[in-house]
């Protein structure tokens, strides 16, 4: 297949100057340098220079090819080199080494409304922005009505845009970009503008734009957007290519790594061991002391593996170990409280039979079926209660366990092709019947 973009061994180095806070240097430093040389030994100077100017490789030996009419996504965390790559592809900055071959007319949208001037009217800005994006004037004239209609700001066309609401501003700004007609479209995360209705219109227009044989390079943090728009994904990490392949795989890998690395340690808590004074403990007037204490808890897959990443289509188990310090004079009820990541209680679960009350160590285990939880983050508070007592709470440990329900590759067959988010706490498998009435 013939390519429209071929990237070969592309590298980009930035020099970070620690000697100065800003990137623009003061001429005094440069002028002062020759004099500095008289004072110091050559060695000292070199060490100092190496210290004050640090090299930073934003891209390292990146190679890939985009076929004609292919839509690819560039994904990766912050600082992975996505923006640098886009800037090189759009010719804003030069690579340090390597090359890019591009066939066809390129339009890049790294921002909406580039060059918009607040003092100019909407009409004037449409022409200005069009010219900056490389749209010839007669083409803008031809598309003017469409642009205006799309933006929905007809009434304010002759008002300076500084009087626009921010919503109107971005709508107009995006509208100009929406009618570009390049062979290759490079888009940074610019779709997330305006209100819901306008976002939908933008997304539709983007699909339309990307539909007819155009090559598209799209950068986004939203895996849902990436999956719905692109076929392939280039996954970058610290300036290097991790993978380049089908979008499903790339996105899944990205999500996996991001969870493991950046947030796994800080957020997820698949198990805990109770430590007096360290573990968060809920205490109020109803709390008792001296009857029982928590020992530990964990979340595990049905296979027994302790993990805080649970697939939506697999059942899992939550366990709690506790000790009754004395024989309890009333019924003992372990119970688990589940919350979503905003702290809203999803449900409380109790055992069906009564549990032992004699002094000793016990483990309570609760089975959670697949699809009870929707995808997302949840926390669990293990509690031990004796409701007949005047102080019914033996212990309650808020946020003791934290886990996340994931849905790799949108595996839920009841999505019926829907690739976006499915909100809600739960995604229960309920019985349905659809019968014909004619």
């Amino acid at each position, binding site marked *: 297949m013939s390519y429209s973009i071929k990237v070969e061994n592309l590298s980009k180095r930035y020099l970070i100057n620690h000697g100065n806070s800003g990137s*623009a240097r003061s001429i005094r430093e440069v002028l002062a340098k020759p004099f500095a040389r008289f004072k110091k030994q050559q060695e000292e100077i070199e060490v100092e220079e190496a210290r004050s100017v640090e090299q930073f490789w934003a891209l390292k030996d990146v190679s890939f090819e985009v076929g004609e009419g292919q839509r690819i996504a560039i994904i990766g965390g912050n600082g992975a080199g996505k923006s640098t790559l886009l800037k090189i592809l759009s010719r804003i900055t030069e690579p340090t080494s390597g090359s890019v071959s591009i066939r066809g007319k390129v339009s890049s949208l790294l921002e909406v409304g580039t060059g918009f001037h607040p003092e100019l009217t909407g009409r004037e800005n449409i022409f200005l922005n069009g010219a900056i994006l490389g749209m010839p004037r007669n083409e803008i004239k031809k598309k003017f009505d469409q642009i205006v209609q799309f933006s929905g700001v007809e009434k304010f066309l002759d008002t300076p845009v500084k009087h626009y609401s921010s919503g109107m501003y971005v709508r107009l700004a995006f509208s100009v970009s929406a009618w570009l007609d390049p062979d290759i479209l490079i888009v940074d995360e610019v779709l997330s503008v305006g209100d819901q209705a306008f976002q939908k219109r933008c997304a539709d227009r983007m699909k339309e734009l990307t539909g007819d044989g155009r090559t598209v390079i799209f950068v986004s943090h939203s895996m849902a957007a990436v999956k719905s728009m692109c076929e392939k994904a280039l996954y970058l990490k610290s300036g290097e290519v991790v993978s380049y392949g089908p979008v499903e795989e790339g996105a899944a890998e990205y999500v996996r790594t991001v969870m493991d690395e950046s947030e796994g340690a800080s957020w997820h808590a698949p198990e805990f061991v109770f430590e007096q004074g360290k573990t968060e403990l809920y205490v109020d007037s109803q709390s008792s002391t001296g009857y029982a204490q928590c020992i530990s808890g964990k979340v595990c897959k049905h296979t027994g593996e302790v993990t805080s990443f649970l697939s939506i289509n697999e059942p899992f188990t939550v366990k709690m170990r506790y000790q009754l310090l004395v024989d309890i004079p009333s019924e003992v009820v372990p119970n688990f409280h589940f919350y979503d990541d905003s702290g809203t209680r999803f449900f409380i679960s109790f055992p069906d039979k009564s549990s032992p009350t004699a002094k000793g160590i016990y483990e309570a285990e609760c089975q959670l079926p697949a699809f009870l939880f929707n995808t997302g983050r949840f926390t669990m508070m293990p509690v031990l209660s004796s409701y007949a007592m005047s102080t019914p709470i033996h212990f309650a440990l808020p946020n003791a366990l934290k886990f996340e329900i994931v849905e790799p590759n949108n595996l839920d067959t009841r999505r019926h092709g829907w690739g976006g988010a499915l909100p809600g706490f739960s995604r229960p498998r309920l019985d349905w019947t659809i019968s014909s009435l004619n």
Partner: protein
Amino acid sequence: MSSPSEIVISNGMTSKGYWQDFWRHREMLLFLAWRDILVRYKQTLVGASWVIIRPLLTMLVFTMVFGRIAKLPSNDVPYPLLVFSGMLPWFFFSSALTECSNSLVGNSNLLSKVYFPRLIVPASTLLVCVVDYLISCLLLLAMLVWYAHWPDWRILLLPIFSLFAAIIAFGLGLWAAALNVRYRDFRHLIPFVLQLGIYVSPVGYATTLIPEKWRFLYSLNPLVGVIDGFRWSLLGQESHIYWPSLLISVVGSVLVLVTGLRYFRKSEAGFADVI
């Protein structure tokens, strides 16, 4: 739409097809100039009349100070006319240089978000200054009529002297614009230099005031030749043209333009990284 042509991006490749690219972006150049003209006098009380008011007031002050108070010789020309014919190229030069030197930094959002030959930006500012200049030329015309001073054939050479003023301003402007991206000192340096420059250039007085032995040194300022040329072609002063100064202006302007272009082009690729 257009036949797919292949572009290769690699280090140091911006030079290839630069001028074709520049030509292709000519509409953007015009639009940027149009924007600046449109925006300049928005939210001002007297609007575009500033183009007239500024040189007019300066001329009045200079005439008062140099002509009336210091009683400098005017070589049989009405002093206001002498001052104005010197101020016209000077204002053109100084505003073009100032605007050019700030143009890249002022449009940094464009530089970091869109590709285009960076030369478009200072070129569009120069264009704006040319428009201003042409408007103030009308004022000059009005003054010539007022003083009933009819220039002879030599006025046909005025565009050439204007061109040299533009070239010097643009050449220096390119240097300053590119350096300003890296070293913001030039933002402070340029206005300061221009402030002094108005006194070491024959704006408020005639060059004939300079003693003969200092004449050559004085003429090292390339604007001396340009301003003298202006006076010569407008006022038809009998005084002959001082050739060394004219030569310095011509050679200097070409030199400044060529080196300015070269430096600009060399540093252009890195603008987006350091701005």
